[in-house]
């Protein structure tokens, strides 16, 4: 085992898969040798694999994703980096209408092995156009898989699974996770899609949290423990497919559910998780479900404002207390 950052873990996955499989290549704005990615995930890769396979593009999000679709259906395994998740809005036809639907519309003739990596999330004061979390949109489009690793281990393992698969994967990273460190094995490994991970066992309440919010949830769990509240923290790791079984069995055990996710509350990730439980496991609940997410506002610039809208430990603890 080695300790590396989330950023490095992603890079290792890219590098190892490119090494192994000639059809894997990267494209995106400023991922090449001049800039090496806005968040430096592709650092050194252009030097290692050449400019052809680590391909800087014009600022043309729609055509970048579209080009990846065209490459994917003709034998390649493209990995796109969209510099900020907010900018996937520019490529939404190619993502939701083309990449996601091609396999289905054409009766299963072809796979669309394509990964779109993009960072979501707030916390760095870059305001409304660079801080959103739009995973819920992707969840809503059949054909897409949605991964959102919260640790370096998962970042590497899930990305490898994404690259080796045959489906378009929206690979949702988080700006604040890039520098965090974690242990990963020395040997090749993958993390399967659709298998949630219990990050902390508990029996009084389940906190289902995604991406960076896992760390806030764990922090909340530690603080609650001091008050004698035993919290189970569950990380879905992928939202599509979703590990419903584990979610439900945790709720069965604890009888209480707090769902935490960045992104706006209404019609967001927390809505779907709440709905699944309300539909399939309501009898296990001993209290209302609680959702902790952004209020329905764009992300503001000024630090006190941004802090106010982003979910945090305090709000999680408050939600737990309300149903305990």
């Amino acid at each position, binding site marked *: 085992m080695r300790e590396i950052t989330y950023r490095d873990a992603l890079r290792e996955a890219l590098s190892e898969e490119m090494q192994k499989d000639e*059809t894997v*290549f990267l494209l995106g704005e400023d991922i090449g040798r001049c800039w090496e990615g806005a968040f430096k995930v592709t650092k050194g890769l252009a030097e290692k694999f050449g400019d*052809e*396979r680590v391909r800087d*593009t*014009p600022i*043309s999000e*729609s*055509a*970048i*994703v*579209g*080009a*990846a*679709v*065209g*490459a*994917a*259906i*003709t*034998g*390649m395994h*493209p990995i796109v980096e969209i510099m900020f998740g907010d900018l996937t809005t520019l490529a939404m*036809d*190619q993502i939701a*209408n*083309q990449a996601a639907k*091609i*396999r*289905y*519309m*054409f*009766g*299963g*003739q*072809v*796979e*669309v*092995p394509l990964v779109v990596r993009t960072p979501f999330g707030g916390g760095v004061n870059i305001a409304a156009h660079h801080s959103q979390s739009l995973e819920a949109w992707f969840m809503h489009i*059949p*054909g897409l*898989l949605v991964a959102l690793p919260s640790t370096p281990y998962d970042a590497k393992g899930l990305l490898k699974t994404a690259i*080796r*698969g*045959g*489906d378009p994967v929206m690979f949702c990273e988080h700006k604040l996770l890039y520098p965090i460190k974690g242990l990963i094995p020395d040997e090749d490994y993958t993390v399967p*899609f*659709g298998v949630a991970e219990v990050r902390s066992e508990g029996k009084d309440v389940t906190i289902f949290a995604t991406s960076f919010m896992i760390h806030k949830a764990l922090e909340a769990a530690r603080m609650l423990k001091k008050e004698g509240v035993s919290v189970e923290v569950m990380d879905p790791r992928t939202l599509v*497919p979703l590990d419903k079984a584990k979610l439900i069995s945790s709720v069965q055990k604890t009888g209480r559910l707090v769902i935490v996710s960045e992104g706006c509350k209404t019609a967001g990730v927390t809505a779907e998780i709440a709905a699944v439980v309300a539909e399939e496991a309501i009898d296990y609940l001993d209290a209302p479900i609680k959702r902790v997410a952004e209020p329905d506002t764009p992300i503001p610039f000024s630090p006190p404002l941004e802090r106010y809208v982003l979910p945090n430990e305090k709000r999680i603890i408050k939600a737990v207390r309300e149903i305990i």
Partner: protein
Amino acid sequence: MDKAKMVKIYRKMLEIRFFEEKVFELYGQNLVPGTIHLYAGQEAVAVGVCENLREDDYIVSTHRGHGHCIAKGAKLDKTMAEILGKKTGYCKGKGGSMHIADFSIGMLGATAVVGAGLPIATGAGLSIKLRGTDQVVACFFGDGASNQGTFHEAINIAAIWKLPVLFVCENNLYAMGTCQTQVMLLKDIAKRASAYGIPGVSVNGNNVLDIFEVAQEAGKRARNHEGPTLIECKTYRHKGHSRFDPATYRPKEEVKAWLEQDPLHQFKKWLLEAGNVETTYLDQIEKQVITAIESAVKFAKDSPYPDPHEALEDVHAEWR
């Protein structure tokens, strides 16, 4: 061009024309679900371009795609079956008229989002470049599509990376009821090529030999790693845009003038006069084509609809 090739071109054009006439007829009989966009009148474009392509070359198509499919070599029966929503269609009935694909012959599919095919074609071109083969891609789209942002982004990318793509704009003067003159100041869409530093050619889209030549040249450049070409084919659709469109927005004289320049009739005339082909031979071909279409129709009609629960299949790849 040798005679066999000329005759093959004629046969293909005829197949498309008769196929579309049949689709129109079946539509009248309520056998075609949804809507249709007929290719009749534009046959020279698909055939003139595709006759330069190998089976392993690619095409990307549009909502008006039957002609592209047939020109690239798709089977008439499976195409017709798809249009009728049958289980035996190319896409098992999931795609329909606007979403036919046949990956076995490099037909990468039709998209019904106007302009969405250009980036995909560019990506297929990139794939060719990265795999180091000498394939090419032909990307069909309309005059209307050339005002989409994707036109700009995709052609620019193909230009800078010198990708082997033929961007074939079928300028039939209208996008639904919207005349080209309403939505762009240029007369020749091909001139937009200069914005990307690539060649642009406008060609008579009703003359299959002209198109063949221009596409041949563009194909050579593409296979030679010299990059993409924008080819504008000036043509006309014989029918309305879609199912119920009487196309009254088109001046009668305009329609008349274009119908007189029917690409199929013109080419037939040329074959007989300059090509040294005999009428009886062409009649024979016509009969063969009619038979082929009839049998495609029979196949499609006789085929079953998909089972309802098949709707749940094909969403994801096998690995799940």
